[in-house]
């Protein structure tokens, strides 16, 4: 049994932790939160690019560092812990995942080196207003090499240079298309969200030039849809690590506060209502962490169970993070409900991560569907 990260992976995690602690503590997320005009921390992102992080999981032949998913997982945990306001997830978990799994060799050679060198920030656009896109609920059309329609919300829409877009083609089949966002036929608009430390926006296409990614698995009818599902599953695992990083930070903050804050002549952490609450948070975090490891294992080994492991990891992480973030405020009392205290930053992030690639109900459906396939 070796169900843990390797020493090298752990030291990469430490390195990430130290960098973020020194260069990207919560004050950075707060600057982005407070300033409507800032969609991300450009300077921190630049430093990350210089460290090679934008290309950490891009294979060497495309100019990246060529580390694997497990390395990405440990870094994601730290990004989550420090609420790093950078387009790491949009570019790496969504955009690059789509290209690596779906693009032609030529496209990979053209685009990925630009990502690795930080010239290109990417994202993926799939949502179209209320609801989550199902196979037969995609409004954006890809016709004659051009995209038409409206996508919102899209993470990092205001700063991304390129996007992978979920659309339907002339045969009414879902497909993923790659497009350059700096063209006139693309209109961007900023959207206000519950989590302003991670910018979101809308992308409207008026015949924007795009190209379809090569079909996944030899071009079967639903290849575009499969590719999209594959990207979501990878992202579910990677986001789960961001979530457990955030949940861990909430528990640490609440525990520390509970030891130091006195009421009725004793630390509030000596009251059982608080102790048991924090024990519950701990239990939730441990289950989520264990399930996230399962997702990481499935992702890294290319296991058939990925759709099951990813959905389990995601739901578990959503539950743990949202519980940890809301109870962190509760433990902090009135102070926890101020703009000044950091508690709400985690609460906001826990909610936005719970929504971004589909909420827990949607992913629970996937859990049961996969179990049915396995057992029934």
């Amino acid at each position, binding site marked *: 049994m070796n169900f843990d990260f390797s020493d090298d992976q752990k030291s990469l995690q430490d390195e990430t932790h130290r960098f973020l602690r020194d260069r990207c503590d919560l004050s950075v997320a707060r600057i982005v939160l407070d300033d409507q005009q800032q969609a991300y921390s450009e300077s921190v992102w630049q430093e990350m690019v210089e460290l090679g992080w934008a290309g950490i999981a891009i294979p060497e032949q495309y100019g990246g560092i060529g580390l694997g998913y497990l390395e990405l997982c440990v870094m994601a945990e730290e990004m989550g812990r420090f609420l790093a306001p950078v387009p790491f997830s949009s570019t790496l978990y969504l955009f690059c995942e789509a290209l690596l799994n779906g693009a032609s060799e030529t496209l990979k050679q053209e685009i990925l080196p630009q990502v690795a060198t930080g010239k290109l920030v990417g994202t993926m656009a799939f949502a179209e207003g209320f609801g989550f896109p199902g196979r037969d609920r995609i409004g954006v059309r890809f016709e004659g090499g051009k995209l038409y329609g409206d996508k919102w919300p899209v993470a990092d829409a205001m700063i991304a240079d390129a996007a992978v877009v979920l659309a339907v083609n002339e045969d009414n089949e879902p497909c993923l298309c790659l497009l350059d966002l700096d063209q006139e036929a693309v209109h961007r608009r900023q959207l206000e969200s519950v989590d302003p430390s991670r910018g979101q926006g809308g992308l409207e296409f008026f015949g924007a030039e795009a190209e379809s990614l090569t079909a996944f698995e030899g071009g079967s009818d639903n290849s575009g849809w499969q590719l999209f599902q594959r990207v979501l599953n990878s992202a579910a695992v990677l986001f789960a690590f961001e979530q457990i990083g955030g949940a861990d930070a909430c528990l640490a903050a609440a525990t520390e506060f509970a030891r130091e804050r006195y009421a009725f002549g004793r630390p509030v952490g000596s009251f059982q209502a608080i102790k048991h609450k924090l024990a519950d948070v701990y239990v939730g975090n441990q289950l989520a962490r264990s399930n996230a*490891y399962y997702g990481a294992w499935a992702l890294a080994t290319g296991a058939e169970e990925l759709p099951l492991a990813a959905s389990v990891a995601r739901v578990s992480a959503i539950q743990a993070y949202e519980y940890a973030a809301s109870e962190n405020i509760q433990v902090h009392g009135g102070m926890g409900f101020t703009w000044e205290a950091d508690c709400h930053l985690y609460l906001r992030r826990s909610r936005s991560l719970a929504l971004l690639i589909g909420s827990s109900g949607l992913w629970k459906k996937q859990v*049961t569907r996969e*179990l049915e396939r396995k057992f029934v």
Partner: protein
Amino acid sequence: MDFDDTPEEAEFRLEVRSWLAEQASAYSLKSFDDLSFERQLSLGREFQARKAERGYAKITWTQELGGMGGTPMQAVIYEQEEEKYNFPTVFFAISLGMPIPVMRRFATEAQQQRYLKPALRGEEVWCQLFSEPSAGSDLGGIRLKAVRDGDDWVLNGQKIWTSYAHISDFGIIVTRTDPAVAKHKGMTFFFVDMKSPGIEVRQIKQAAGGGEFCEVFFSDVRVPDGNRLGEINAGWSVAIATLMEERFAVTDAAGGGAQLEDTMHFLRRELGEGDGGLDDPCVREKIADWYIAESGINNFYARLLTGLSQGQLPGPEAALSKIVIARKLQAQSADIMDFCGPAGAIYPDFQVSRANDYRIAWLEAAGYRIAGGTDEILKNTIAERVLGLPGDIRVDKDIPFEELK
């Protein structure tokens, strides 16, 4: 990252597997319900003797002591494999789980020679006489009195909830020897022969219908001073050592309830496509919830075992598994009953097995949440020993025991 055994572990697993497969036809029954209790116990003893012969009864002990000189990881591997069957091992779980390791630690050489091996072979069963009517979670509140008389101690009082006392040959017991000092400072630990004159065991019918725990009355029971474990009035530290012995066990994440796979087949078969069946969205959401908890526990174990495989023993965080498993068992069993509609309340004729039945599990789970440390006590453990939060305020700490309520 992988779930694989090391080559040595894999070899051991194969060895265990083939041995268990050989035993299965004689000892692993689909159901023991048709057998009398005596027959179940004697089958259990036979299987236990075979286990002991191989050193599997206490894998981490040396061969001299009756074990096989194995690692904690090998012990877990054995449990994982044994759990795939239904062997009658329940009678010895407490006996070998706590009393016998305590004897190993605190009894004299000669006593160890006399008592350890017969217990490993299942010839003798031991029970744990800790809880009393007025002391459970607060073990320090026990009252059963032991008074010195020559070379003996004379015991008077009552123990309760003692699992399997009615089939036990010996028991370990905590007694009050000095009521004039603070509660934790006046207790002494012994082992007793359950056939001693003055001991009366009465089975208590449990809420779920079984009678596996008992009340045990002591009237002028004489126990030789030689049966004392640890120093006079130092019983608390022996008791703590006993509770710490509660070895890390990889229990089934389903908590002995219905396996998810079987439940899904059952719902498909019995409820079809209507309400409560596998297509009902409410059912589907519950299935996801159960699996997420179950998978969380199994993967949590995988993380602990990774440490164990590298020689690190799990710490107090391991307490979380019982909290999760017992609550989940209770909720999941009730959910399945819900899906069945009014018929969910009706017991079937148990042609197959009571053991995994959700109606039985639903009731048993209530006891599981209490036995071996309640949910609340386990949460205290996590809060204090894992998170480092302050201990509860102890109003009884420095007050002589006899002055307490």
